[in-house]
């Protein structure tokens, strides 16, 4: 006869064993195989408006989720032979940048078509700026047949870990995310709310930028969106599996 312990006993056992294992942190097979976010380095413009942002986000992802994170962000050029080592790319800026040459656009396109994920973070704090225009031009070249569109609230990015209603960053320039859906997957996600500005924290533990208008609560939501983006990159549409739907629907109703 098979044992049929109760869920309560499972929880107790899980917590007990989990506590004993807490000291045994992962010893990854290869450091290069850990989850990392690679920031795209490009010529012209400011490719790194928030230099400390990604490190802080990775730290938060590591502490909040079970992802085995490489804490040091990676810098990568689109011409880099190792571009394929980094499925999740982060492209930021606060001003216009010159259009990348076609071979670089082609490599990036292939990366995204093959399963890569690009997060574009506009630090300008308002829509329609130079960076915004450069991004839209790049997106049109990357996916001529798949336009940049607003992601609907039911997109998995809004529920891949936290339940998120609206994207928050250092500012609330626009109440939506935009993206490119390729092969039933969000291959490119564009946020104009300066996520990096909300994540950036100096080595003394001070937040580098004020968050308007919501303060620390808004900053927390910016981190939640960052965690969700990482979980989406690694789990895809896992949270749309039918088994998750009842739980998510129930909790959505509990929200004020």
């Amino acid at each position, binding site marked *: 006869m*098979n*044992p049929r*312990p109760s869920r309560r006993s*499972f*929880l107790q056992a*899980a*917590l007990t*064993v*989990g*506590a004993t*294992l*807490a000291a*045994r942190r992962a*010893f*990854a*097979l*290869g*450091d*290069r*195989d850990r*989850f990392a976010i690679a920031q795209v380095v490009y010529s012209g413009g400011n490719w790194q408006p928030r230099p400390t942002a990604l490190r802080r986000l990775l730290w938060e992802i590591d502490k*909040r*989720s*079970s*992802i*085995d994170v490489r804490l040091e962000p990676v810098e990568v050029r689109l*011409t880099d032979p190792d571009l*394929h*080592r980094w*499925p999740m790319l982060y492209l930021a800026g606060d001003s216009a940048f010159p259009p990348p040459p*076609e*071979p670089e*656009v*082609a*490599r990036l*396109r*292939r990366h995204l*078509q*093959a*399963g890569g994920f690009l997060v574009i973070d506009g630090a300008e704090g308002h829509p329609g700026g130079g960076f915004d225009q450069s991004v839209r031009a790049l997106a049109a070249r990357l996916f*001529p047949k798949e336009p940049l569109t607003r992601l609907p609230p039911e997109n998995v990015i809004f529920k891949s*870990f*936290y*339940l998120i209603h609206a994207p928050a960053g250092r500012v609330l320039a626009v109440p939506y995310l935009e993206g490119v859906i390729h*092969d039933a*997957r969000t291959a490119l996600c564009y946020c104009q709310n300066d996520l990096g500005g909300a994540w950036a924290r100096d080595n003394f533990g001070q937040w580098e930028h004020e968050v308007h208008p919501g303060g620390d609560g808004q900053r*927390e939501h910016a981190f939640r969106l960052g965690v969700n983006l*990482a979980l989406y*990159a*690694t*789990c*895809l*549409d*896992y*949270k749309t*599996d039918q*088994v*998750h739907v009842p739980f998510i629907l129930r*909790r959505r109703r509990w*929200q004020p």
Partner: protein
Amino acid sequence: MSSEWHFALQAPWGLPGASAAIAVALAVVVLGVASARRERRRGRRLLLAVLRLGAAGAALVLFLQPAIQIENVTRLPNKIAVLVDGSESMALAERAGEPSRAARAAKLLATSKGEFARWREQHRIDFYTYGATLSPATEEALVGPPGAPPVQDATRLREALAALRTRYQGRDLAGVVVISDGIDTGRLGETFTDGKLDADGTDFLQSLGAPVHTVWTGHGGLRDVAIAHVLADDFAFARTAVTIEAIVRTVGAAEAGWEGKTLPVTLRKDGVVVKTAAVVVDAAHPDQKVTFEFTPDRVGKYLYEVATPLLDGEAIATNNARTFLLKVIRDKIRVLQVAGRPSWDERFLRGLLKHDPNVDLISFFILRTPTDIETVSPDEMSLIPFPTEELFLEQLRSFDVVFLQNFNYAPYGIGIYLDEIKRYVEAGGGLAMLGGDLSFTSGGYARSPVSDVLPVELLDEGPPGSLVSQDAFKPVLTPEGRGHPITALRLEAKENLLRWEALPPLEGTNLVARARPGATVLATHPFQKGRDGRAMPVLTVGDAGKGRVLALTSDSSWRWGFGAAMPAPGSRSSESSGAAMEAGAQGAEAGDGMRGRWYQRFWENAIRWLIRDPELRFLRVETDQPEYGRGEKVRITVRALTSEYRPAAALDVAVSVARVPGAAAPSSGGPIAAKTLLTDENGESVLELDPLPPGGYRVTARALLGKGAAAAAAHHDEEVFLVRGGGRELEEAEARDDLLRAVAEATSGQHRGPAEAWGGLTFLEPEVVRVNKHRDVELWSTWITLLFAALFLSSDWTLRRRWGLA
């Protein structure tokens, strides 16, 4: 032979000559009459007209030369076809001790010699038997002492009459006599409703152009219980509920005293009772439906049987059970992917499996562990409890393959289910353990029940650093791996090897002790050694009970997909334009496709192997048909492959055939055929069996391997097949005369009951006449004709001259 006469004209030049002669004769008469008008005396005019008419008539007779043709003729007798029902139902008797319907038919024919003699005065009689087909017979065979009972497993009167019509095409058919119990399983029977033939059936019968007389050899009073019909599809989906309906038919229940009796109805699978139901006999409702619902758990071909026990006084024992084949197929491959944490390896495997239309994927990923910081209420998160009990206890066996991907079980209370995972594999499930820092020994599996079924032996617990290697490496295919279906990325061996060498390297590996005895190592580490001093296995497969297990000690096989899909910078594809890149997305120039063709093929191969795809079995035994009719030979083919999946020539394979037990025969009674076959250079061998009695059979093949042969359990295969019995023939065994009566009425034939004398049947007269001799009696060449002609002509000429009319 008889004489017949008819009138004929022998005039020259045929009809035109006769017509011309008549015209001339008329003209002569008219001229003669006209010229006689000058004669004033009426009596003379009349006499001249008569003489001219007589002269012309006499001349006409001489020209036309009338004659009587007398012929001696023989009338060819036309055919009467006597069709005697030779189907299995004719072997039945309504009551014990009574002669069978076939015996009654034979007796009827034997006592009808006088009647036949009368028919033969004008007709010829051809005898046939019919059932599933029409076959010529002889009167002696039909009326003689009974030999083998009628065995045809269908009664198809319309089809038999159609064959008869073809046979008598252009010949003279006087009529047909059908002697039968009235059961028809062909088109006539199917379309005969409410005691009426349909229009098509009636048109067909009337197209015969001859009467069909019918004679019924049955009578009422049958007492029988039958599984009259089983409604089941030919195939079902594994782990999907199947409904089978059976009609239990009772005939003569009131007379037999079965009213109110409860009849158990059992459903057996390969001789083992699966379900039992019951029906209460009710004479007012002879047909009662029984429904069985069950869920086949495994893919394969199975013999099912629906049966009721034999009651006292039943006329037919063989229709109390009905056997059928059910092929259980896989709707989709159900895959459970459990990952200990989100990772690129998990992400790309999920992406691949979700895109595969043949896979039904259930994923569970640990997104947060007990040690992760919890800063918000769970209500603001999309996390759900890990449904351990549902997955690992209740639903585990519904999956075809389970992927444990870098998954450590301990924090989630799953240790108590590891035994269940082991049992799942041993019962036939597929398990794949993929590497990572939470897998193999690092995941706590050493000395666990799961380690018993893994194809690799695990290291004992130790410091984390001693359990993994972080060095990148390219796995090396072993000789077994070069021919194994899992590692077959290309068909051609050399190309396959080159393809493997071209794959991106893996990032680190879990360390394992060695391959388990009997396991097959497909790829090894290039420099890590196992505890046995050999190259450490990286990709290993093996059998565990009825199941299969794969162990890949790396968590970076995703690089074979994503990495391989990315061309090197500066390559032609990377420099190409956007449009060209779209074409490249189809995998044309990079050769790897967007999802990584080789990564996709590797895992598709692995899943097919794990689920024991029949195409990948080492030894396969097959019959040339799933079902055989009575009297058909059974052809069994075995195909053997080596562990490298090449034809296994000169291999001894023991093949045995045994009955599958059923209601009638609870035990198989041992093999009915057993032989050791030697495979040819194609790894094949054939065994042909003489026709077998009706029933279900299992053929078992087992490769006779030497002591050193591995994976002996894999060199065994089974197949089931069915030899059909009476088919639908005994479903409705009660004799009926309404169809025979309707057939007779539709063709202006007559119907006779069993007790009626069958004399007085009428048939069409023969039409075909053959002339043996004929002679002509000439009516014109007599002296009287010449005398009349001379008299009329001379008188006419003489009188006209005398009276001044010439």
